[in-house]
């Protein structure tokens, strides 16, 4: 947003070296960043200090002087390989710790579907609201993005949240965040994706819960992804094997599948996450679930990314004792309702 001057600079006038800190990660990442900066400054001063001192002190006096050779010292060598190594380890451990937090979405996160395409971001909420190049979220709610691309690799990058993940064609990637400050923040595409890469920008709008509710009700919520998914499920004939309500038949029951441990014919166990469901639809023979013949046809190339996401959303909504995706209002029960944000999210019934 050109006219709305992003707060990024305004608020960090104090220290114009770090961007706005607006998510639960920001401060953690910044702390680590300052540690690294400290180490760097230390070693840079150490080295350049020593260089300058020696260069001045041991300036060549006469063109014929030959200093006494010094072989070296094992002690020093070990010293200056061990100390840096220990420092390095500390940095590594700290970084890895935050990294896992950044990419392991919590159980009760609200899901938002993101589809990148040259050169725009298409976003859909589980309640049906669609947005382009804008993402509205309430403060203090954990948001999990389920992302894929229709063409090339893109990257969903929000500096103020210190989060970034590639958005790949042909598979799902996820990341999550919890915004801490209302405001409008840059959304960049951070993976080069062709002509208009630098134009594939937008903004994440963080609202107070009440404002978010009014935004939700204000925006026309069309059919929810789950409901749309149900229609594809029927039109593609999944029902013929998995049953109209996913109760199962020639194919395994899909009710309660999401998040369950699935025993495969090969004997190994996998958790049925979005990726697994996607794979089961596009490449069924890869992971055949135990007790069934691999008779499921592949739907490779017959469904586009958006439809696929909706089917996945539908299967996820098939939880024991719920008939989801039937109405446009009731959100997918598998995931906590984003509306109304003033209430605490419904705890999910799944077994993850």
């Amino acid at each position: 947003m050109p006219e709305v001057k992003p707060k990024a600079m305004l608020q960090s006038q104090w220290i114009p070296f770090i961007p706005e800190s607006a998510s639960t990660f920001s401060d953690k990442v910044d702390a680590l960043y300052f540690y690294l900066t400290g180490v760097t400054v230390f070693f840079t001063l150490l080295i350049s200090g020593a260089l300058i001192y020696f260069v001045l002190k041991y300036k060549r006096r006469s063109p014929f002087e030959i200093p006494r050779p010094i072989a070296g010292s094992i002690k020093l060598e070990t010293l200056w390989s061990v100390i840096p190594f220990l420092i390095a380890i500390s940095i590594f451990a700290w970084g890895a710790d935050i990294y896992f937090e950044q990419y392991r979405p919590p159980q009760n996160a609200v899901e938002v579907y993101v589809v990148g395409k040259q050169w725009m971001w298409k976003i859909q909420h589980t309640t049906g609201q669609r947005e382009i190049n804008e993402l509205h979220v309430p403060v203090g709610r954990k948001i999990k993005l389920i992302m894929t691309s229709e063409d090339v690799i893109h990257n969903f990058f929000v500096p103020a949240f210190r989060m970034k993940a590639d958005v790949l064609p042909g598979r799902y990637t996820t990341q999550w965040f919890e915004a801490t400050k209302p405001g409008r923040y840059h959304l960049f595409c951070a993976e080069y994706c062709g002509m208009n890469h630098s134009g594939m920008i937008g903004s994440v709008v963080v609202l107070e819960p009440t404002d978010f509710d009014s935004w939700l009700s204000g925006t026309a919520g069309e059919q929810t992804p789950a409901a749309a998914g149900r229609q594809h499920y029927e039109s593609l004939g999944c029902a013929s094997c998995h049953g109209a309500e996913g109760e199962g038949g020639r194919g395994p029951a899909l009710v309660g599948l999401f998040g369950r441990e699935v025993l495969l014919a090969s004997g190994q166990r996998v958790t049925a996450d979005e990726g697994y469901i996607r794979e089961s639809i596009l490449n069924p023979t890869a992971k055949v679930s135990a007790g069934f013949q691999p008779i499921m046809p592949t739907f490779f190339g017959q469904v586009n990314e958006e439809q696929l996401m909706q089917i996945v959303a539908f299967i996820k909504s098939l939880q024991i004792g719920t008939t989801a995706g039937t109405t446009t209002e009731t959100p997918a029960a598998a995931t906590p309702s984003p509306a109304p944000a003033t209430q605490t999210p419904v705890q999910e019934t799944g077994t993850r």
Partner: protein
Amino acid sequence: MHPESFQPPTPTRVNYLNAEYGLKSWLLTKDHKRIGMLYLGSISFFFLLGGIYAMLIRLELLTPQGDLMTSTTYNKVFTQHGIIMIFFFLIPSIPATLGNFLVPLMIGAKDLAFPRINLLSWYIFMAGGLITIYALLAGGVDTGWTFYTPFSTTFSNSYVVATGLGIFINGFSSILTGLNFIVTIHTMRAPGMTWFRLPLFIWSHYATSLIMILGTPVIAITVLLLAFERVSGIGIFDPAVGGDPVLFQHLFWFYSHPAVYIMILPGMGVVSELIANFSRKNIFGYTFVAFSSLAIAVFGFLVWGHHMFVSGQSLYAGMIFSFLSFAVAIPSAIKVFNWTATLYKGSISYDTPMLYALGFIGLFTIGGMTGLFLATLAVDVHVHDTYFVVAHFHYIMVGGALLAYLGGLHYWWPKISGRMYPEGWGRFSALVIFVGFHLTFFPQFIAGYLGMPRRYHAYPPEFQVFNVLSSAGASILGVGLLIPVIYLVWSMRYGKFAVGNPWHLPGLEWRTSSPPPTENFVETPVVTWEAYEFAPLEEMEVVGVLGDRSQDESATPISGD
């Protein structure tokens, strides 16, 4: 057949430069020194080309809105800047010019093991270069130097195949160079030149060659597959047939990370020479510095995934790669500390090459340390593909590798051209470059952490201040680089004649006349001294290390005036 003791070279007016004349004598030469010069000419051209692109980038980024050129043009400009600078300038820079010239001289051999292959490698290089230039003229390429699929295979409509072909061919020249070096260093060392008497320049070139032969084939097959895929419309990187684009990134970085060590290791070798020789000290902890080169070469192959922390690679793989990236930093650390320690109680002269060497150490430290930021998982998530990365690698590649290259060029210029460069101008331009460099690239660290993505043709206005600084710096840097270009060319004709050993150094390359005769040494030398063993000067005079005085009226030491 070997002389018992070392004979001083008899003064020769005939040298490799005036042994023969005419274009043919150059284009068909098998003399490693002349081939080195052929390379010098070609890569200088590519450097200037890449530099012009760089200037276009900086011009465009002066203002937030992309007003100078269209976004497509801009994409082509930075892509071609990257491709030219990496594949056609920095990778061949030191090995193919100074390495070609010096490896045989330093180990006391008459030539590289395979002179014909050496010449062939230059022709292959030129072939690759010409094809790439054709691609640029025909319409250019806009994939970024990293060629990420599926954009490069399916969506880009620029000359990807031609460029890929150029890089594919170019790869073989670097393989052949590496092969030649390794065989030469193994089989052609002069009598008495044991492994631990080798100058560190040789060790680093040995390590570099290892990477060249083990890594380059992988990039070759990768770009080949990429080209096939583009031509046949489908392929293994194409999600549309169930391929995985990330596989391309694995294959690409398997080479391209080690390649960054192809770019820096020779520079480290040069700096080791400069630091030791211009402080008249044997390098502190020779064996550690020598083996750290090999360590870097080996470990360098274990960290490529640190370019893919946010690419959808598994988190666990990310952890492994992050950890190993920290491990690979240690050998570099060892080098930095040993260089610094070498200066202690030395006899340090402030000649231009030394200034470059000192600059290298400082800038490489900063560049390397910021590499650690990137190797840190959580931080890389934020700064990946921002200007922070851009700043990181320019600090190492321009502040490090390029300065080392310039330092080496000045240091061996008397040997190469038989003339001295103007010392005053040398020091001056070194300082200009140093200043301009910082101004260009330091602001990019800040812009990067603030979130400015790289490869952006237009950017939000709040980043402008950093870009203006950077562009200003770039023009200073450009001028700073222009000066040596001018005076080096000038000195080839008007420079003072150089004696055989202008710096009074023990290295073998200084024990023959400047420029050396075609066969390098009148007699195969027999090495009886350790590396960097500085005999008292009077004694060196006796064995005639000062070389051929008849060429030069002023045999008084240039250094330490």
